């Protein structure tokens, strides 16, 4: 079964892919197939290309090799910038990939599995994982000798300098190596440093690379240095994924040849450490031929050596310590087996080396390392992924193991016997387990739906990870661990005697328990964990807390939910810890800063919140001294996130506080990185704080303005972007502040090219709207020259910016239409109005906006005349762009300027574009509708033509065409009415009527919509077909279950009931009433509401009695939703037909001894009183006995509804002197305060609130005073709620009514002012 299931899943995938391809191919054909079609009878020719134009012009777009799936691992430094390929042409590649993927292990459920954050992140985001959580820092504000282990500012800065210098040396070496100046022999004798050995390896690599030209162009400047930098040494999540850890799959998991084979051509662009490290030892002293191939044979013996290789990284990661091989490699190539043994720590003697265990797991890491004095009894550390896979395996094996006879006997009642299987039975021996690899949630893990477990057999399957590791902490109140949690929470798995722990250990354990509860627990567990950890935050101290929380946040298997919870914990404890947090600010920043650039909006907000709280807790000085070293960090990622964090600090502590610092940073002479980051901080501040920068605008501009003349291109660019952000934030004010930068900016656009120019143009674009007309016109002319030159730029980013700037320039007052018309428009249309611009979504949008803006200036005729012919373009996307532009222009400026000739062209184009459309969206329809309605009476001449098209298309075979035709009728019906084409509309009505048998619900819905539109404009009397024919035809359609049909149908019926009810017999209306009852169950609220309103109209038309009888009968049904809707309908009927027509009937119905009916009646009363408002004064005395009766009912729900009705009634009769009745009711309502049901209490509070309004607060206060000081809390509590409402609503009225409290010896409680008599 599982096999066929998998096959089915793949088949589905293939079909979907094939559909997409087919759709894409169709587009292709349409685009370019027109010219090459062979006429009937003419001589044919062979296709020059089969895959579109791929083979013809652009051969390089063709994939000529099957990807090995390694692309993901390419370092971005070495990644060549690939032009984005046209999606259509990439199809064959996709196909190959799909086949390649399906050939190997695929998990058909891969899409449904919850992704961890690490999995969905981009390369850039992943760099967060490479930062290390730095050691604690000295808190300068504490008056004591700092712990020497903590780093102070000077030390951090020294380290920073060291990094910078190291980077420079590395770069220099790489450059020299590239230039070929560097040779192994020519290496000058340096002091033997740690990394000299590796540096000299670099030329070797490069030599190898240059020796094989087939290697291609990938730049490899990092080669030798990858292992040098500490960041790169940290294994990234992606690398772990490579570890194939399937014990049984080992045989076919032999590493792919290219990794190990000796052909140099097989080198992957990325060097991982496996490839590099041995070479240091092996290649340099041996001075073998530089080439990768030589290593492979030597591997077996090398492995042992690796452990000795001095790793350049400061932290020795797991990779450096263990033989770099995964066990299944060992299983596949037995000669490695020897190398495995020595690395086994003797502390695990009892463990049989199962294949799935990484020997490397024996190296303690992370928090696990802290607590590993004695190894945990049942614990074998694995990587989370290995653990996961192993667990699945084990679980599936356990579940699928055959039942033993004993088990069967225990299952079956006595009396069964074992039969011999039939002779021809062949058991199924091919269980493909792939489908079974469902990510079953861990037993007891939080969230999601749980399939109730099969009862355990012999306790198998109960024990967490396949019985191998017990994941249930010893404290049974804690949630079980997930496999990924092992390294953080393993201590909880050990049984310890609490009394023997030191205080620190005990605290650590407590924190761990709370964190586990928060991370994996159920919501109540989480709540209590969070509360406890917050309460005790100061007791635990900042260090122990953050030492546990921050590693969790850096975990590669973190999920969104978990991250959110951990961030929440940090947020809460920050408040408590306050200044204790200072030494840990940098650690926290390292973890939180990446949130600022997360793709998830909420993650960004959370990140901001934390950093701003952190800033408030730690203070400005600490923040600055902590983040200062990161400002000129060598890593761009660090600088980027730091700049954003600084912006948040500025918004938390105020811009003025940060200004002196920013000034210093932006003027830094030492490094351009500092200046760059400083200016970026200002930019981010502008983006983050918006118009709040206005008071400090001058200062900010002064700070950054020197960047425009910086010698570094990057600084100039960011300065321009910063000015753009400032101008955007401060618009429309503050041009004075920018005075000093105008000149350099305008000079800059003449001097720059490419990216720099784009940034400068952007800045100018945002500055121009700030200027007054005169200046704007002058500067626009200046910049226009450049813009027009850049119209031709092939760069996409430049195009977008140019379009944006043109839009901004044209929007200002000072620019004359004639100038735009003569100077800008010709080249504008030449450069931008082409098919290619329509292909990219963002270009499309920008171009439409810009063109509409220009049209505002030069008039609609000018623009429409230029593009109207393109409505007949062969490219649909382009036609759509034209249509949208014209629609927007016409909607803004009307069609009065359009002359007869243009009008003709326009309609012609509209009809063409409308008929040719294949995609399903509303652009064409909206455009048609807008343009026609703006033309108004002038459209009369074209109506016959349009209607002809519509009628013809209504008859089309394709459902979509019919639907569009019907939709178009709905759009242009008002115009036809305006043109007095009533005859034509009548004709349309008849045709549509005939099509009511339509079988596609989408189309039927549209047809009903069209009928509704016609009906609405020509009125019920003139409607053809006559209403009396139309309505009976609609009645059966009401049964249709499709939402679109239901909605349109009920709307139409409602409109008829409202305005044309006299055309239809009462009997027909009754029939419709029955159908309407069904619609009360609809999921969509608008349908239910329309149905209820229709009840009202029908009741008005034929009198309430029959409708009411139907509705009251409906109260007897079981379905709750139906009853609720019925009560609403009854209330509506009584509102439209006046309550006296309905009230007797429903009060009579209350005598039916059936609780549902009685509840329904009460509910109807409640809704009715809500709707009729003050009309209730005439009926209050009539219903009081009924309500009293209901309030004495035993059933709680019954009383609840009655109390609700009383509340609405009370509010309705405010000011009509019905206090006697209300007081009577209150006496019956009041005792309900002791009920437990929160719903009832809520209604009761509401009713008391109603009484406060109508009966007066003093009366209610007197009721309250009886119970406010009652000895029983249960009595006091609800009454205080009411009392508080009294205070909030009418505090003044109460002061005369408070009881007189006698004085005590110490206190004077009497309000003597009240005793004054004059």
């Amino acid at each position, binding site marked *: 079964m599982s096999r066929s299931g998998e096959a089915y899943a793949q088949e589905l995938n293939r079909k979907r892919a094939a559909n997409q391809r087919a759709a894409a191919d169709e587009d292709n054909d349409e685009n370019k197939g027109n010219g090459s079609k062979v006429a009937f009878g003419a001589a044919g020719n062979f296709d020059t290309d089969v895959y579109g134009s791929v083979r013809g012009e652009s051969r390089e777009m063709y994939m000529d090799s099957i990807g090995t799936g390694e692309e993901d691992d390419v370092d971005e430094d070495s990644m060549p910038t690939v032009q984005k390929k046209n999606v259509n042409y990439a199809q064959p590649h996709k196909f190959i990939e799909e086949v390649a993927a399906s050939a190997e292990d695929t998990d058909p459920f891969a899409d449904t599995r919850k992704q961890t954050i690490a999995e969905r992140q981009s390369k850039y985001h992943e760099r967060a994982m490479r930062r290390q959580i730095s050691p604690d820092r000295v808190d300068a504000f504490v008056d004591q000798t700092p712990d020497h282990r903590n780093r102070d500012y000077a030390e951090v800065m020294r380290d920073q300098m060291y990094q910078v210098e190291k980077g420079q040396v590395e770069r220099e070496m790489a450059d020299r190596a590239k230039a070929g100046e560097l040779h192994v022999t020519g290496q000058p004798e340096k002091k033997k440093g740690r990394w000299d050995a590796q540096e000299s390896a670099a030329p070797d690599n490069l030599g190898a690379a240059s020796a094989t030209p087939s290697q291609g162009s990938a730049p490899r400047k990092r080669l030798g240095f990858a292992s040098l930098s500490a960041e790169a040494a940290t294994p990234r999540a992606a690398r772990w994924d490579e570890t194939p850890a399937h014990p049984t799959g080992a045989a076919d998991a032999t590493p792919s040849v290219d990794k190990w084979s000796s052909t140099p051509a097989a080198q992957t662009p990325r060097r991982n450490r496996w490839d590099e490290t041995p070479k240091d030892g092996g290649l340099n002293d041996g001075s073998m031929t530089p080439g990768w191939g030589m290593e492979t044979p030597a591997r077996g013996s090398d492995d042992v050596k690796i452990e000795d290789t001095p790793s350049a990284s400061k932290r020795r990661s797991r990779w450096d310590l263990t033989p770099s091989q995964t066990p299944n490699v060992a299983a596949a190539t037995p000669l490695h087996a020897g190398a495995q043994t020595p690395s086994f720590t003797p502390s695990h003697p009892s463990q049989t080396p199962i294949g799935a265990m990484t020997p490397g797991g024996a190296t303690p890491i992370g928090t696990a390392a802290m607590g590993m004095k004695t190894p945990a009894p049942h614990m074998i550390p694995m990587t989370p992924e290995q653990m996961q896979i192993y667990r699945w395996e084990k679980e599936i094996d356990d579940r699928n193991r055959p039942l033993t006879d004993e088990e069967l006997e225990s299952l079956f009642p006595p009396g069964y016997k074992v039969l011999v299987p039939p002779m021809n039975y062949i058991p199924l021996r091919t269980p493909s387990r792939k489908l079974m690899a469902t990510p079953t949630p861990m037993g007891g893990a939080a969230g999601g739906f749980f399939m109730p477990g099969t009862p355990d057999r012999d306790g198998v399957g109960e024990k967490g990870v396949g019985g191998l590791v017990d994941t249930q902490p010893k404290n049974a109140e804690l949630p079980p661990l997930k496999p990924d949690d092992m390294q953080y929470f393993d201590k909880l798995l050990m049984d310890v005697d609490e009394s023997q722990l030191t205080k620190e250990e005990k605290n650590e354990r407590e924190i761990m328990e709370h964190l586990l509860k928060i991370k994996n627990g159920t*919501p*109540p567990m989480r*709540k209590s964990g969070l509360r406890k950890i917050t309460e005790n935050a100061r007791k635990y101290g900042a260090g122990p807390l953050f030492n546990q929380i921050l590693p969790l946040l850096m975990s590669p298997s973190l999920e969104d939910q978990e991250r959110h919870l951990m961030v929440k914990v940090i947020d809460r404890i920050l408040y408590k810890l306050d200044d204790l947090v200072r030494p840990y600010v940098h650690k926290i920043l390292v973890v939180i800063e990446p949130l600022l650039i997360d793709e998830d909006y909420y993650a960004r907000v959370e990140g901001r919140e934390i950093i701003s709280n952190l800033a408030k807790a730690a203070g400005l000085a600490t923040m600055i001294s902590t983040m200062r070293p990161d400002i000129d960090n060598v890593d761009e990622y660090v600088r980027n996130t730091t700049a954003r964090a600084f912006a948040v600090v500025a918004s938390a502590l105020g811009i003025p506080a940060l200004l002196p610092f920013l000034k210093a940073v932006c003027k830094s002479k030492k490094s351009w990185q500092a200046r760059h980051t400083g200016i970026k901080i200002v930019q981010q501040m502008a983006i983050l704080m918006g118009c709040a920068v206005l008071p400090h605008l001058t200062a900010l501009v002064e700070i950054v303005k020197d960047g425009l003349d910086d010698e570094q291109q990057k600084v100039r660019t960011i300065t321009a972007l910063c000015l753009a952000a400032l101008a955007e934030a401060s618009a429309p004010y503050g041009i004075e502040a920018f005075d000093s930068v105008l000149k350099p900016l305008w000079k800059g656009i003449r001097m720059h090219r490419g990216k720099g120019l784009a940034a400068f143009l952007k800045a100018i674009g945002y500055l121009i709207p700030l200027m007054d007309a005169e200046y704007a016109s002058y500067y626009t002319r200046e910049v226009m020259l450049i813009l027009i030159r850049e119209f031709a730029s092939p760069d996409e980013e430049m195009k977008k910016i140019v379009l944006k700037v043109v839009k901004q320039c044209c929007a200002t007052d000072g620019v004359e239409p004639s100038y735009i018309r003569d100077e800008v428009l010709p080249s504008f249309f030449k450069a931008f109005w082409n098919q290619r611009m329509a292909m990219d979504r963002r270009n499309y949008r920008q171009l439409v906006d810009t063109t509409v803006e220009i049209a505002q200036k030069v008039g609609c005729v000018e623009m429409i005349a230029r593009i109207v012919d393109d409505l007949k373009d062969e490219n649909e996307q382009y036609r759509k762009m034209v249509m949208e532009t014209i629609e927007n222009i016409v909607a803004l400026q009307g069609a009065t300027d359009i002359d007869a000739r243009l009008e003709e062209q326009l309609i012609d184009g509209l009809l063409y574009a409308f008929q040719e459309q294949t995609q399903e969206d509303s652009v064409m329809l909206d455009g048609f509708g807008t343009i026609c309605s703006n033309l108004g009476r002038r459209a009369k001449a074209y109506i016959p033509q349009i209607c002809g098209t519509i009628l013809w298309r209504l008859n089309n075979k394709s459902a979509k065409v019919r639907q569009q035709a019907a939709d178009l009728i709905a759009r242009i019906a008002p115009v036809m009415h305006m043109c007095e084409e009533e005859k034509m509309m009548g004709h349309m009505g008849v045709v549509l009527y005939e099509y009511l048998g339509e079988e596609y619900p989408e189309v039927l819905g549209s047809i009903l919509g069209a009928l509704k539109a016609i009906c609405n404009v020509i009125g019920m009397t003139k409607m053809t077909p006559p209403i009396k024919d139309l309505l009976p035809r609609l009645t059966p359609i009401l049964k249709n279950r499709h939402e679109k049909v239901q909605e349109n149908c009920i709307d139409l019926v409602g409109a008829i009931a409202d305005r044309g009810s006299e055309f239809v017999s009462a009997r027909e209306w009754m029939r419709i009433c029955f159908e309407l009852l069904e619609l009360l169950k609809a999921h969509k609220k608008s349908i239910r509401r329309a149905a209820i309103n229709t009840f009202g109209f029908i009741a008005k038309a034929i009198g309430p009695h029959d409708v009411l009888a139907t509705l009251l009968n409906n109260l007897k049904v079981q379905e709750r939703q139906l009853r609720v809707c019925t009560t609403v309908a009854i209330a509506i009927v009584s509102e439209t037909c006046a309550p006296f027509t309905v009230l007797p009937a429903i009060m009579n119905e209350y005598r039916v001894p059936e609780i549902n009916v009685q509840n329904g009646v009460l509910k109807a009363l409640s809704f009715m009183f809500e709707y009729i408002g003050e009309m209730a004064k005439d009926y209050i005395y009539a219903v009081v006995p009924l309500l009293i009766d209901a309030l004495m009912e035993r059933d709680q729900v019954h009383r609840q509804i009655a109390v609700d009705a009383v509340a609405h009634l009370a509010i309705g009769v405010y000011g009509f002197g019905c206090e006697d009745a209300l007081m009577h009711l209150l006496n019956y309502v009041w005792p309900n305060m002791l009920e437990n049901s*929160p719903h009832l*209490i*809520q209604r009761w*509070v509401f009713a008391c609130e109603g009484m406060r309004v109508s009966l007066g607060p003093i009366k209610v206060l007197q009721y309250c005073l009886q119970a*406010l*000081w009652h000895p029983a*809390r249960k009595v*006091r*509590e609800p009454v*205080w*709620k009411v*009392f*508080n*409402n009294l*205070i*909030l609503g009418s*505090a*003044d009225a*109460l*002061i005369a009514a*408070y009881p007189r*409290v006698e004085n*005590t010896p*110490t*206190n*004077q*409680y009497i*309000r003597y*002012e*009240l005793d*004054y*008599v*004059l």
Partner: protein
Amino acid sequence: MALPGERFHVLAQLEHLQSKYTGTGHADMNRHEWVVNQHRDTRAFQMSHPGLNTMIAVVENESRARTRFNLINRMIQPCGPPPEKNPLDDV
């Protein structure tokens, strides 16, 4: 059946809403706090209605501004110091 956490959700919200305003009370309030609120409400009322203010000014034989000032001052500990906290109260 609703979860235990949700059971008092709406009411908890109401309680939270009410607790944001001064003058509101709760089931654990003592007489002193309650009466202090009444005093303050009363004086604020008398002070802010010119008619009442004038009446009290005449009775006390003070100017209206002085009366107003007095009334405001009387809002500071209007009933004297709060009673000593009885350790049994918390039990």
